[in-house]
Structure formats: structure tokens, C-alpha cells
């Protein structure tokens, strides 16, 4: 009956006078990757800590798989697992020792704890590093052991707080593959990230958070759509033409044009006018090297959304 993995209503949290979460609403279906996207200090970690019962909200309520996080914390904890943004295993222990210790703390007898630890190390391709101290692991290995430690008992919901921050592209891809495998296996993954690309690639749905407020929610396509149907990019050859080109575009398309390097970009409300604008540029002998008309990148969507919300707060 309950199709939602997570239901958050009116979530409020303050630290001192600073309101970190401001009436946050989220509905997260089961079996997907859900991305919490936001810049530094947006409140992502705070949200994840509340959802995983580590922090008490000041207001509102949270249901995880139908259980209230405050009233039924232990039921919730049986079904979730968290890989924190910071150390979530003991750096002064080896990978194997960490997993064995955590397996024992989850209730495995000593022998089974060792078996389970070895099984996980193998699945995460860490057998060779099993007997090395975690503090000597590379960033990618470090993240893999963090995640392995979170799935000793497979959770229904896995929270990953910025799992790829600071990783090189190859290690990042490895973590992405791990996440994809989990979701195929039926786990719901809640992922926080500052990277739009990551949310775009990985998340089935995305919530954009800024300053503790939910400012947009949907699939990455929906978010791009919500910002404007089409986005025009024109790159020209000669710098001296920049201002003239800008003027022409603004006249023809009656829109505001941004300049970045040699590229002019603008949100286009009426794509049919673009052809005549291009014609005019040709008439004035402004040479173009690159041209595109299409949907905004998630980057643009994000910038647009977050700057709107800042304007909203201040204005």
C-alpha cells in the first residue's frame, strides 16, 4: 500500500538562530536513486542526518517506509544505512578489521562476521587492501570501504552523503557503478551531491535545495524544462563584434543576452525568431563558429533556480 520510501513534511531545523531547514517537503518513491542537489551549506547533510535518525527535527515529521523517525527510530534504523560525508569507518583499523567489527556490532557471530567481511571485500575489489590500514587507502578505495561498511546487512534505503566529492573521474565512475548495481538490486538510494552532472547521470529524481528550502523537484528533464524551453548559444569569431551581436540578438529576440568569453547565450521564448536573428548577424558580417539551440543544461537550470531563490529571499 505504501509506495513511498520517504515522506517528509514541513521539516524545520535551526542551529542557534540560523534556520538551516525551512519547511522542507519531500516524497521519495521506492527503488530509485533520489538526488539531493545543492551548494555548500544548503542543508543536505542536515537533511540526511535527520532522515537517518541521527538528528531530531525542530518541526515537521519524517516517515521512512511508513515509520516515524522519532517514534520508531529503531524500526527505521533496521531498514536504513548511512555513509556519512566524513569518516564512517575507523582509519586506524584495516579494511578487514573494520568490516569484522561492524558485522559483530550488527549481531553476526565472530566466524560469520569474518566470512561476510571477506565476501564484501571481494565484491568491492578490496581483497588486496584487506590488511592495510584504511588511512593509507586511496580516495576511491576509501569510498568503497565506506559503502561496503554500510551494506553489511543490506538496507532497504541507503543514504550516501556526497559519495564522490574529491574523487578522480575513474573512482567516481566506480562509485556510480556501485550505486547503479544497488538500485538494480532493489535498494532505494538517497544521494547528496554538489555536482549537477552526477545528479543528471545517476538520479531518477532530483530535489534542488538552497538555504534549507526546496526550490525545485522532478526528473532532470523536468528541471531543465521548468527553466525555459530553449536555450540559444552562439559563439562568434571576433571579439570586437561581441557587443554588436548582443545588441542584434536582444533587438530581434526581445530577450536578455549573457556573454561568456566569445559565447552569447540566451533563453529563447519564441524559437521561430532565431532564424531572422541569425540572418541579421550574417548581414552585418559577424562570423559565427558555433551555434546551438536546445534545452538548457542542468548547470543552467541549477544556476537559474538558485539565483531565483536568492532573489526571492532577499526581495
Amino acid at each position: 500500500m505504501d509506495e513511498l520510501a520517504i515522506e517528509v513534511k514541513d521539516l524545520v531545523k535551526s542551529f542557534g538562530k540560523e534556520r538551516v531547514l525551512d519547511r522542507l517537503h519531500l516524497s521519495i518513491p521506492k527503488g530509485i536513486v533520489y538526488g539531493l542537489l545543492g551548494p555548500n551549506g544548503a542543508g543536505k547533510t542536515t537533511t540526511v542526518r535527520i532522515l537517518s535518525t541521527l538528528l531530531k527535527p525542530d518541526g515537521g515529521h519524517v516517515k521512512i517506509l511508513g515509520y516515524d523517525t522519532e517514534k520508531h527510530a529503531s524500526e527505521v534504523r533496521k531498514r536504513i544505512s548511512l555513509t556519512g560525508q566524513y569518516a564512517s569507518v575507523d582509519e586506524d583499523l584495516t579494511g578487514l578489521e573494520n568490516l569484522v567489527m561492524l558485522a559483530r556490532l550488527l549481531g553476526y557471530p565472530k566466524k560469520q562476521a569474518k566470512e561476510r567481511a571477506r565476501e564484501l571485500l571481494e565484491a568491492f575489489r578490496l581483497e588486496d587492501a584487506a590488511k592495510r590500514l584504511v588511512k593509507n587507502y586511496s580516495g576511491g578505495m576509501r569510498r568503497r570501504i565506506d559503502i561496503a561498511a554500510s551494506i553489511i546487512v543490506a538496507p532497504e534505503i541507503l543514504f550516501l552523503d556526497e559519495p564522490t566529492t574529491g574523487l578522480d573521474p575513474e573512482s567516481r565512475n566506480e562509485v556510480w557503478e556501485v550505486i547503479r548495481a544497488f538500485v538494480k538490486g532493489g535498494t532505494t538510494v538517497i544521494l547528496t551531491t554538489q555536482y549537477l552532472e552526477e545528479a543528471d547521470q545517476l538520479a531518477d529524481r532530483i530535489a534542488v535545495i538552497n538555504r534549507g528550502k526546496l526550490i525545485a523537484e522532478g526528473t532532470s528533464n523536468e528541471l531543465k524544462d521548468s527553466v525555459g524551453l530553449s536555450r540559444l548559444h552562439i559563439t562568434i569569431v571576433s571579439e570586437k563584434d561581441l557587443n554588436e551581436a548582443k545588441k542584434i540578438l536582444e533587438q530581434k529576440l526581445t530577450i536578455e543576452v549573457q556573454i561568456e568569453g566569445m559565447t552569447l547565450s540566451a533563453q529563447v521564448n519564441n524559437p521561430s525568431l532565431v532564424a531572422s536573428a541569425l540572418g541579421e548577424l550574417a548581414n552585418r558580417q559577424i562570423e559565427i563558429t558555433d551555434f546551438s539551440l536546445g534545452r538548457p543544461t542542468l548547470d543552467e537550470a541549477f544556476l537559474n533556480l538558485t539565483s531565483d531563490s536568492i532573489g526571492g529571499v532577499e526581495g
Partner: protein
Amino acid sequence: MSHEMDHTRLQRVISGVKRPENPSMLQATLAFSSRALIKIKHVPEQMFDVTVFPIIFLMMFTYLFGGALSGSATEYLQYLLPGILVMTVIQITMYTGTELNNDIRKGIFDRFKTLPIWLPSTLVGSLLVDVIRYSIAMTIMISLGFILGFRPDGGVVGVSLAVVTILVFSFCFSWIWTTLGILMRSEKSIMMASMMVIFPLTFISNVFVDPETLPGWLQVRSDKSDLFTDYGCSRINARNSNLTRSYLSNGSCSHSFHHLCTTYNVLI
């Protein structure tokens, strides 16, 4: 290709895993004890302060101050050893508090909090390993003391009682640091706090000199403090087997243990 292989391998380790029954209090405590023991195994140097330091201290004070304070080193040793025993052990009580502070700051404590365990086992486990540390330190010091000529009036019984008193007292005392470990910003601030408390108290207590030689206002304070009572009673135990005062001090520290346990639960 290899991605497909990874996928099936990863899916296999998460599927069909049955959740075991939650661990008992004892199992959880033992898991945390073995964590502390493993750390000693990886960094044996951390045992210096329960092995090498006590030896240096004892030798240094005996031969450096012995002549000046009591006329002869052996004579001063009779007075010094019980006190320096307590002093050394008290310094070790900070371990678990600073470790806890580390765990909280670095974030691993978050993971412990989501585990289905009796949470104080994180502390009790490593405090039990601390008891091993205390015992090693005391064994070394008492043995060395004997070699240097320490002859307690209380005999074997007196010394054993003194050792037990110190163990219980230290176990209780370490809860102060674990509480600070939760409250304080960094392990450095805990060290500072403990230095500020332990150092002056050690010197104005009767560890090194008889309090009767101190100015009046200091003597009054030393009568009232648990720490001093304990210095005093370990000395009395060792020399005269006088038990009354030791019970007094244990009574008050188990009281404070209880108190701190409650605070601890509230804080977490």
C-alpha cells in the same frame, strides 16, 4: 563487460542477506574492546605512557627529590610510590575520553549510533581496555618499587586492596573525560582541561609531600577532594591497610559514576 560482472557480484552480496539477531550488551562491549586492543596492536608506541613513563617518573622522583625531601631515597620511596602510582594511572584515564571525542568529530560515531547496540558499550568496551592499561602500569611500578626497596606495611593484602581501589577509582574518574569528550570541541581542549585539573591537584595533594607542610588554605582543600582522598587512601592501604577511608572514596566515586552515566545518556 566488466561493469556487468561487477553488477552481478555486487547484487549478489546484497541479496539474500538475513539480518542477524541484535548483539547482546556483552557482545557489543567486547567488539569495542577488541577495537581498542587492535589499535594497541597497530600502534604499540601508545603503550609508552603505561610502561616507560612510569619507570622514568619513579626513578626520577626517587633519586632526584628523595635526598632533599626525606634524607634518603629509599625512605622517600616508601612515601612516594603509592602517590605516584595514583598519579600515573590518573593520567591514563584520559584515553577513552579523547578517543570518543575523535570518533564524534571524525564522524564514525554517527555510524555507531545507527547500529542496533546498547550505545554506552562504545565507552565501556574501551574503558575495559583502559583497566588493562592501568594494571600494566601499576604492575610495572610496584615491581620496580620492590626492586628499589619499597616495603609496604600493609603487605600483600594492603597492596592488593590499594590496587583495586585505584582501579575502581580510575574507572569512575575516566567518566569525567568521556563527558568532556562529548562536550568539548577538540581533543586538545580535553588535554588542556585535564592538565589544568590534574597537574596542580597532584602537586598540592600528598603525592610528593606531606600536606601538613603546605600552607593552611591548601590543606583545607585537600581534605575535601575525592582525588586527594584517593591518594591518601591508597597510601594508607599500602602502608596500614586502613579500609574506612577507601570505602568512603569509593562510595563517592561510584555515586559520581552513576551521575555521569545519566548525563551521558541524556547527552547522546
